[in-house]
């Protein structure tokens, strides 16, 4: 925040403003990504794999002839779904795991094993079809695919989830549901109504005011600048894989389980990764498997890498919500009912996680816990479109898109300030209402945006003849406190203290840009500050490598900012004991007679002292090794809150919406690295506002062909489009462990779309429930042009 954030506990390094540890490496262009490793100058003989992509929204391969492709000079292998080593592969699922390493038989969604490696049944335009080739150049590989003769059986397709759920709709996954496109209920609930507490009918009967709200979130792409892929080569019976998917250990598990290999014969390396935002959570991708088979067959390194177009590969899940909420005149909410329609796209991946798993496990206990009567239900359907995975959380943005406006509308009907209504009703399961964190977050945001100046909907002054301004906000529980990370199991961290008192830190996790590496170095420096060293003396190992021995922490959520840091004090204790043992031998005293302060070893009862450096240098010159592998504390502390407040300007003549400024507030418990946290808060708005206003995947409805899988027509926010953002960091809530922290990387985007919708309403007095908000939607809502397709007609 401007002027700097003030930490609750002042530490030497954690919580301080300083450059990112990999800033120089990245600013010089020296940081290596998959693309910079997978070059022929580094891997002579490397082949390029290209997979056949479906030109149809829904089709089957009736027959194939690959003979011309095989004869093309430069082609080394053509692999098809008919080859025994492919046909015998198990069916798989795109989202085995939410965030920990999971085996095939323990995958999260065993009910929905709907992916095959190289299937003959393709389900969206661009789907990986039954042929992959490996050739000496990308161009030759592409040409070989052109020579593959395919006889397609073109099947009817469906793009709209409501149409997909109707009887008679084309069945997209008969192996999952032979009768329609609705996924069987979540294995965690066994029913579409996955959560029911109290009696909602009774709750609504007790209410004086009842409101209903609808929202429609779209399949927003991750659009990371670095595209996904892998380079695989074999040495004898050992496979090595470099990948831009951020879960090295889980990738190893996936490859070994699919190809029936022992774990020690697969090595997975994550170099730097060009952005992620959760996309790796659909990392159990068939392309690892066919690339491995091609590399084995050709005995050459094989690179499979998405082009920009191909990297439009998964997305934030499209979810349509209906929310009904009732309250008494005094603002006490008596009941709430949320019903969602999840549009999974062509594969289940993580859509049930978005509509059920995370709503049940995260938003409900985190925000709705004190609503006495609650009902949640979900219906997820396949359509012939891009699948939905995880993106900066799972399902949180989507439910917030209905929740934020519902709270706004309910407060209006009650004649209450929505800030007051929120504080009166919402809080997490493990604490009282009013929730201290929510109060602090909302009051800070309201103060900084100037909430007291908010006018009645549509009643503010007019600017430049046609423009109206409005304020709005939304709030949500933050994403991932320490106790929610317990399923990760043991957390492993190791340091080596060299004889010159410098340190090699092994806290393996792929660096995707989140800055958890800096958090780890700072917490390590705090834990080892008794050695008289700082972050400059600590070298972080930038590449994650399953062969180095320690389990990596998957960058699936922002808790990586502190889960490994929680091990640092334990590492520090081991190092202290070992240094004392070395010094004891040199002083010819017992270790308990000595102490270490600021890099000096003292004999407590005499004047004798010696620097740690001298102690280490005079010892056997073998680095001190300290390795910790421990589970996280299970103490349940609830979660803190986040809110986004925005001011928008709506041009009532053109329908254009401009966000003038945003205040993004997070209570983190402990801010590990303020410039990193603020970078998430500010940067997250570029993504969230893009999803709200400019980004949209457009399909040709007559063919199902996506029309804008490129960076010209899929409109990401640029430097000119982004408003001024005020990032506000608070430390009010307290979690467990050394740092008592909660993540924020996901929740920086959660509240923004709903805040913008509320601000548009405040500006012009009309509600819009669908994003992206396009000018024509605003004009239609204002009654200036006819509404092309009303929501009712669609249903």
């Amino acid at each position: 925040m401007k002027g700097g954030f003030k930490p609750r506990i002042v530490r030497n390094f954690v919580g301080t403003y300083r450059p990112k540890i990999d800033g120089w490496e990245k600013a010089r262009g020296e940081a290596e990504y998959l693309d910079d490793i997978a070059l022929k100058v580094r891997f002579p003989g490397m082949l390029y794999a290209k997979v056949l992509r479906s030109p149809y929204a829904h089709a089957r391969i009736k027959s194939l002839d690959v003979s011309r492709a095989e004869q093309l000079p430069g082609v080394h292998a053509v692999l098809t779904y008919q080859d025994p080593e492919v046909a015998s592969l198990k069916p798989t699922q795109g989202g085995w795991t939410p965030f920990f390493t999971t085996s095939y038989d323990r995958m999260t969604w065993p009910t929905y094993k709907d992916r095959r490696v190289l299937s003959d049944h393709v389900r969206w335009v661009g789907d990986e079809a039954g042929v992959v080739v490996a050739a000496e150049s990308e161009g030759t590989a592409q040409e070989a695919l052109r020579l593959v003769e395919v006889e397609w059986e073109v099947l009817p397709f469906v793009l709209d989830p409501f149409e997909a759920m109707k009887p008679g709709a084309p069945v997209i996954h008969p192996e999952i549901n032979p009768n329609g496109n609705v996924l069987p209920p979540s294995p965690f609930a066994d029913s579409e109504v996955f959560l029911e507490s109290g009696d909602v009918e009774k709750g609504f009967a007790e209410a004086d005011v009842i409101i209903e709200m609808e929202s429609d979130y779209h399949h927003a792409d991750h659009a990371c600048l670095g595209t996904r892929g892998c380079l695989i080569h074999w040495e004898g019976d050992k496979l090595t894989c470099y990948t831009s998917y951020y879960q090295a250990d889980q990738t190893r598990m996936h490859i070994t389980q699919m190809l029936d290999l022992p774990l020690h014969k697969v090595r997975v390396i994550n170099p730097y990764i060009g952005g992620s935002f959760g996309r790796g959570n659909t990392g159990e991708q068939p392309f690892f498997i066919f690339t491995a088979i091609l590399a084995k067959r050709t005995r050459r390194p094989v690179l499979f890498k998405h082009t920009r177009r191909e990297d439009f590969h998964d997305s934030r899940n499209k979810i349509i919500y209906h929310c009904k909420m009732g309250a008494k005149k005094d603002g006490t909410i008596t009941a709430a009912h949320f019903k969602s329609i999840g549009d999974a796209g062509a594969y289940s991946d993580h859509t049930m996680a978005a509509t059920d798993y995370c709503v049940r496990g995260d938003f409900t206990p985190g925000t709705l816990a004190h609503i006495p009567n609650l009902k949640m239900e979900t219906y997820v359907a396949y359509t012939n479109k891009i699948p939905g995975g995880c993106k900066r959380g799972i399902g949180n943005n989507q439910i917030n898109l209905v929740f934020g406006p519902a709270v706004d509308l309910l407060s209006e009907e009650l004649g209450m300030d929505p800030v007051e209504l929120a504080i009166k009703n919402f809080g997490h399961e493990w604490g009282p209402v009013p929730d201290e964190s929510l109060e602090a977050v909302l009051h800070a945001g309201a103060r900084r945006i100037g909430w007291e100046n908010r006018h009645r909907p549509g009643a503010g002054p007019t600017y430049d003849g046609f423009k109206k301004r409005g304020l709005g906000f939304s709030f949500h529980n933050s994403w991932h406190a320490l106790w929610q990370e317990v399923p990760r199991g043991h957390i492993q961290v190791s340091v080596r203290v060299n004889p010159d008192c410098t340190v090699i830190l092994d806290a393996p996790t792929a660096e995707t840009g989140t800055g958890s590496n800096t958090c780890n170095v700072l917490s390590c420096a705090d834990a080892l500050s008794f050695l008289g060293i700082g972050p400059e003396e600590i070298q972080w190992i930038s590449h994650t490598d399953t062969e180095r021995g320690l389990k990596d922490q998957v960058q699936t959520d922002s808790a990586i900012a502190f889960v490994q840091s929680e091990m640092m004090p334990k590492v520090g204790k081991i190092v202290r004991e070992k240094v004392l043992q070395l010094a004891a031998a040199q002083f010819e005293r017992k270790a308990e007679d000595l102490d270490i302060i600021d890099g000096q070893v003292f004999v407590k009862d005499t004047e004798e002292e010696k620097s740690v450096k001298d102690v280490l240098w005079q010892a056997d010159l073998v680095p001190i090794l300290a390795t910790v592998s421990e589970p996280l504390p299970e103490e349940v502390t609830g979660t803190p809150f986040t809110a986004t407040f925005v001011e928008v300007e709506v041009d009532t003549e053109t329908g254009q919406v401009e966000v003038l400024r945003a205040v993004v507030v997070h209570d983190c418990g402990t801010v590990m690295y303020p410039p990193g946290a603020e970078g998430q808060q500010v940067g997250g708005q570029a993504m969230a506002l893009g999803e709200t206003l400019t980004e949209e995947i457009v399909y040709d409805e007559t063919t199902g062909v996506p029309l804008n899988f490129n960076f010209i027509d899929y409109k990401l926010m640029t430097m000119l489009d982004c408003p001024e953002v005020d990032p506000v960091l608070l430390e009010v809530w307290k979690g467990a462990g050394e740092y008592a922290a909660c993540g924020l990387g996901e929740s920086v985007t959660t509240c923004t779309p709903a805040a913008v919708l509320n601000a548009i309403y405040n500006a012009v007095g009309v509600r819009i429930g669908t994003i992206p908000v396009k000018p024509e939607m605003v004009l239609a809502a204002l009654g200036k042009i006819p509404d092309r397709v009303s929501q009712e007609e669609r249903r």
Partner: protein
Amino acid sequence: MSRMSDRSERTSTAALSTEERSEGGRAPTYSIRIRINGAWQEFEVGRDIEASHTLAYLLRERLGLTGLKVACDEGACGACTVLMDGQAILSCTTLAVEADGHEVLTIEGLPEDDPVIEAFAEQCEPGFGTALQCGYCTPGFVMATKGLLNENPHPTLDEVKEALSGNLCRCGCYAAIGQAVLRAADKMDRQGR
């Protein structure tokens, strides 16, 4: 493969790539010279590179100058920005042969302590975040900034935004990048560069 039911049709899956197209009617070879990061280098077109190869391809795939990135491959994101004769250009939409006789500067050619690199690396001023997160777009932003400051050594923030609006940063570090550019300009001014 002659059967065709009413619901079937045959398709070609891809057009010829530019790379393959050039292998058809091959023109006689000729040489081009490009001064890359201070040193003249000669390439035989048709042997060392194809006439259809982009400058990005030559720099990355043949010369291993991997600082620049090819992220969109169609001039929409700026990650491949390099300087040609001091001006920022997109190397993914420039043919290698177009650089014949010109001076090309990639990020590898900047001095270690270049003030723009320093400003991007060290930005941590409260309220803006860091000027880079994943770092994939960063070399493109650094080179676009070099191009801007060559033309306009004292830009306003609005001029910075205008000049860098062709570069995409999905992590959204724009506010911090703006600060870094202003800071680099100040530093270069003080150093008289």
